[in-house]
């Protein structure tokens, strides 16, 4: 039986059993992971995961059931489980859930691929990881340890909804990472670089991919001589990688409408108000081809679309699912995503970026007499209810008379969502994107963060010197 038929039967059963709305999803992911450590093949692992789920709305309450045991009997059992889960909430819910009505649709989409991942021999993938690992280790004798990971995944997902919508999307992901450790005189430092996107094996042939091993090792070597940063508030020029993490963490999460509705976002009630300087425009766009957060349809079968979150400093829109859109009297933005077959869709970012401005990056740096030039992102997070964010940079330079001078290590930046975009006083014209994995409520999905160089005043820097 074809997928569409299987899912449509589930929806029929759900509607007959009393659901006012239902959707069903199926997901199949086949992936390969190669790990080379210190010149040896630590692991080659291939895997297959598949399963499906049903979500039902019964008298304003949600039930959800999922299973990796794929069979017709199991699917019927699953519908019953979802219905009884929804009924378990009966009488306990004050606010009845609704979903934004959608028109019917049937569509299949496939990512554009030049070299399909399954057309490439495993040996070639392993060889690439070996080559990058060797390049890390042979850059300098101080580089003593390195890990290179190649991973790819081909994913097919299908969504059927009781609005009469069926979408099927085939995507392939590729992710490369290099981690290098350098040692000198009792000091130890590490460098880390990633490259990835949506597409085929051709993604490994870009300059960024080919230089990954050398870049990670160079960073570890540079950091060997770097002291920790000073503590306090500084004007910071952020490179595109850390500025991308910055917009994702400092602002993006607080725009997710489910957090707004649960009282967990500091941006509640701020639509239409100024939240940033006129220099700042922030966009979320899953339709950007080749980027890690690409999709034409989300996990509720809504069309992916470009959403301007902030326009010249004014908060214009939150990111929505079908439920949050109707609750907040907005239109769906196609941002409902689920990590896998066992996860329910929640509101997520996709490819989120600060739109390019007019400054040249060298002008931004040149006109910053004192401060920090911060580069690369290790990780970041936000407490959206407090509006408090934190992120860690890979490296940073002291700026003296507009020139990067001393290199610093382990720089941690922190600030407040409501203050931070107001403090952006310069946006350059060199927009770049970086792939990442974003976690929320235990679900991890591929995203892209993007930005040009930006300058932010009064950023709190935590350091030890």
């Amino acid at each position: 039986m074809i997928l569409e038929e299987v899912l449509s039967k589930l929806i029929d059963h759900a509607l007959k059993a009393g659901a006012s709305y239902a959707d069903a999803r199926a997901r199949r992911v086949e992936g390969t992971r190669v790990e080379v450590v210190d010149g040896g093949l630590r692991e080659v692992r291939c895997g297959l995961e598949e399963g499906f789920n049903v979500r039902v709305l019964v008298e304003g309450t949600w039930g959800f059931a999922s299973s990796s045991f794929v069979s017709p009997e199991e699917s019927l059992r699953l519908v019953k489980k979802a219905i009884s889960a929804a009924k378990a909430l009966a009488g306990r819910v004050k606010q009845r859930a609704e979903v934004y009505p959608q028109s019917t649709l049937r569509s299949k989409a496939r990512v554009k691929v030049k070299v399909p991942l399954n057309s490439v021999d495993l040996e070639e993938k392993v060889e690439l990881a070996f080559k990058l690992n060797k390049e890390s280790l042979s850059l300098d004798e101080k580089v003593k340890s390195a890990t290179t990971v190649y991973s790819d995944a081909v994913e097919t997902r299908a969504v059927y909804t009781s609005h009469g919508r069926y979408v099927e999307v085939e995507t392939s992901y590729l992710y490369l990472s290099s981690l290098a450790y350098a040692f000198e005189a009792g000091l130890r430092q590490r460098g880390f670089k990633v490259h990835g996107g949506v597409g085929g094996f051709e993604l490994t042939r870009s300059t960024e991919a080919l230089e990954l091993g050398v870049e990670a090792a160079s960073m570890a070597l540079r950091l060997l001589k770097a002291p920790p940063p000073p503590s306090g508030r500084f004007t910071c020029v952020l490179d595109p990688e850390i500025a991308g993490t910055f917009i994702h963490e400092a602002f993006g999460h607080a725009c997710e409408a489910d957090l707004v509705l649960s009282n967990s976002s500091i941006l509640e009630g701020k639509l239409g108000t100024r939240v940033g300087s006129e220099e700042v425009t922030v966009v979320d766009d899953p339709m950007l081809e080749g980027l890690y957060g690409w999709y034409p349809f989300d996990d509720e079968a809504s069309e992916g679309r470009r959403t301007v979150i902030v326009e010249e400093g004014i908060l214009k829109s939150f990111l929505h699912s079908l439920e949050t859109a109707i609750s907040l009297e907005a239109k769906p933005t196609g941002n409902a995503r689920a990590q896998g077959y066992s996860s329910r869709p929640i509101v997520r970012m996709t490819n989120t970026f600060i739109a390019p401005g007019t400054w040249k990056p060298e002008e931004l740096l040149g006109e910053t007499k004192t401060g920090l030039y911060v580069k690369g992102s290790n990780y970041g997070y936000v407490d959206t209810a407090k509006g408090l964010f934190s992120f860690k940079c890979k490296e940073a330079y002291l700026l003296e008379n507009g020139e990067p001078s001393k290199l610093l290590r382990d720089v941690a930046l922190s600030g407040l969502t409501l203050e931070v975009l107001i403090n952006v006083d310069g946006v350059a014209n060199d927009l770049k994107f970086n792939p990442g994995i974003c976690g929320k409520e235990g679900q991890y999905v591929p995203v892209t963060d993007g930005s040009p160089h930006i300058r932010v005043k009064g950023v709190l820097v935590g350091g030890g010197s």
Partner: protein
Amino acid sequence: MELNAELPRLAVEQALKMGVEQAEAFATVARRVSVNAEKWDIKQATVSFTGGLAVRVIKQRRLGASYTSKLTPQSTYEAVKKAVKQASISFLEDVRLQGLPGPSKPTEVEGIWDPGLADLEPEDAVRFVSESLEASRIDPRLSSINISFSSVSRTVAIANSLGVEGEFKDSWARIDVEAVAKDGVEQASGYCPGWRRRLKELKGWMIAQEAAREALMGLGARKVKTQDLPVILSGLALHATISSISYALDAELVQRGRSFISNLLGVKAASPLLTIIDDATTPGGVRSRPFDAEGSPSKKVVLVESGVIKSCLHNYYTASYEGVESTGHAARNGGFSYNGRVGVAPTNLFVKPSGKGGAEDLASEAGRALLMKTTFDKPNLATGDFSAVVVSGFMVEEGSVTYPVKQAVVHFNLSDFMRNIDAVGGSLEEILDLQSPPILVSRARIAGSAI
């Protein structure tokens, strides 16, 4: 959903027939019931069934691995075939790979299975969450309580070609509560998790009230100046610090020189007040189990004893390379995920109490200090540098806990932290998989926002 315990044995036999020297198969099935509530209101109940099988095979010091979420004989065969193919590709062998662990008797571990959780229905979970929500209404300034609850019952089975064979059932229930409080234009939040093997041991109402109190106590937060101060670590900030030290003792990081503790084994590198134990055999411990993710028996391991670094955490790969016994800390994605790489992970961590009392007692000893209760940051394990945003923290003045602090970052190095411990409290806090008294360190840099 029952696990067919024959599948791992079948997979091992098939792999050996395909010409590998050693083979291992690991399988798991789990049932999860979850409920989430937003802004005091229950939103959704979910039931999920997951399962899968992982295969590792070794041929001429080459490791091939595969996994599948389908637990049928046919998909098992496919997974075995893939793993064998990978071990046969002609690349450099892994010189550190010594094989798979041999058979040994699993450790008897009590209190990890609650039959009540295996039968838990969404109605029961909804009732639990409703009661927790109601209990949290302790102050009109609370504007929202969000709860995420889940219960899991699971079966794990493993077999390898050297004679390892084991199976266990376990269960747990976990609640995460986020509270938001508002007073005029000011907003503060609190977060508290709870995790237990048995439902009756999980006091949802208490955890919800604790999160609510943390949010209320966060109102009126003030900025502080950049300064050096003693710091008292408690709650999730204490968890982040102690668990990071245990992660830095991952033997693979240590052997490859990647950890800030790499050269400190056997060295008195910490205050004599510090003793850290990892014990996978603790009765009822949330990470207790009879054997680890490759079938080695669970053990109690002293990591730091009176300031001396005593042991790393080993799986068979790292232990056999060093010629020592595995400490039973093999983990797949930190636990027993069939789709995870086999690495190393700590289990139940325990810090030995030394002095008397809790955070308030340490505050009175410190005089002026910062009490840091929550951060979500993590340190750089290569350097030990730790810059942690104070998500929840309080100033200690004249020996008393006073006002909440906002927009501050604490910076210290984990090596310095271990050396500069001034006091370890006497009352144990239970924070997820850690039992530890609060700890006072003599000095850390606080980056503050006050001018």
